[in-house]
């Protein structure tokens, strides 16, 4: 079914130079260390089954490439969805787990570039996406009222941010020039981001109807010292 290698934003090895890949691994390792430390301290244990379900859902949804204009496809990233439900720290752990399994078991995304892939698709959408989501939800009168539009905007922005970051990494690696990569990547992913927003809103709406209490798990933080 997939005649061509799949890599929506999953860069294969060779796209990024060794210095850029190694540098991004360093940044990602730091970010994940922070995420694990914060999650270990504050995560409510009842969130763990939700983390497992989110990892399974995001893995499955990332296999479903939807059509965008001009013979191009895209799929969910899921960072904002994970962060809305789990917070940025546990959300980043889930995203890193999914992206690592995709690279290690399914050869989707390279190993040397995995640091960059986890950063672009996993860290930015959770760490950054979460605060964008909270900010917009706050402006709309709180999460209860602003959840869906805030998640939609944060989701779209997370895809754009990943595409823009990867463009800079491609340019810094001399794989492409910024003048070429940035408009091309930005243009395609502006459309793919609409799919991200739609799937994020659909998933959150489904939870709101069936199990709205799951929204409270994120802030049910424990204090373990």
């Amino acid at each position, binding site marked *: 079914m997939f005649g061509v290698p799949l890599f929506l934003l999953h860069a294969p*090895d060779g796209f990024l130079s060794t210095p850029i890949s190694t540098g991004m691994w360093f940044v990602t390792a730091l970010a994940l260390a922070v995420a694990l430390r914060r999650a270990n301290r504050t995560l409510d*244990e009842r969130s763990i089954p939700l*983390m*497992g379900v989110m990892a399974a859902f995001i893995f499955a949804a990332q296999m479903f490439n939807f*059509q965008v204009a001009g013979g191009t496809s895209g799929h969910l990233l899921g960072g904002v969805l994970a962060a809305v439900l789990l917070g940025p720290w546990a959300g980043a*752990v889930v995203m890193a*787990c999914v992206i690592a399994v995709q690279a290690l*078991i399914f050869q989707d995304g390279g190993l040397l570039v995995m640091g960059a892939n986890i950063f672009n698709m996993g860290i930015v959408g959770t760490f950054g996406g979460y605060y964008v989501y909270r900010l917009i939800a706050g402006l709309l009168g709180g999460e209860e009222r602003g959840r869906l539009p805030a998640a939609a905007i944060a989701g779209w922005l997370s895809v754009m941010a990943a595409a823009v970051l990867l463009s800079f990494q491609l340019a810094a690696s001399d794989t492409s020039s910024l003048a070429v990569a940035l408009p091309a990547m930005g243009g395609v992913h502006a459309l793919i981001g609409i799919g991200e927003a739609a799937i994020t809103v659909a998933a959150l709406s489904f939870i709101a109807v069936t199990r709205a209490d799951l929204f409270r798990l994120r802030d049910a933080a424990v204090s373990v010292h």
Partner: protein
Amino acid sequence: MKAREDISAGTLRALARRYWWAIGLLIAAIIVVVLVPFASSDPDGLERVAEDKQFLDSARDSRFDWLPDYSIPGIGGDLSTILAGLVGIAIVAGLIMLYGKYLVARRP
């Protein structure tokens, strides 16, 4: 008769509340079984740009192949993709549950 239906509906609801995570995993499995065979096989965003801007060739093949491109070697067609997807769901959910066990174990 009416009462018995109420009890069984109530029991089902209670089961669904208790095992909601199993329903969540089932939804992920349903996505793989029902939707993924209809996924677009067109090049995705990055691949389209790499092709158009002529840097697709700089991609290096992986040095190992386990379940490459979401397929089980030796099995063809949609079945291969579906099985690979189910394996993936089990692995990511299993890893997170292991992480959860570690997290609970290190707490006082």
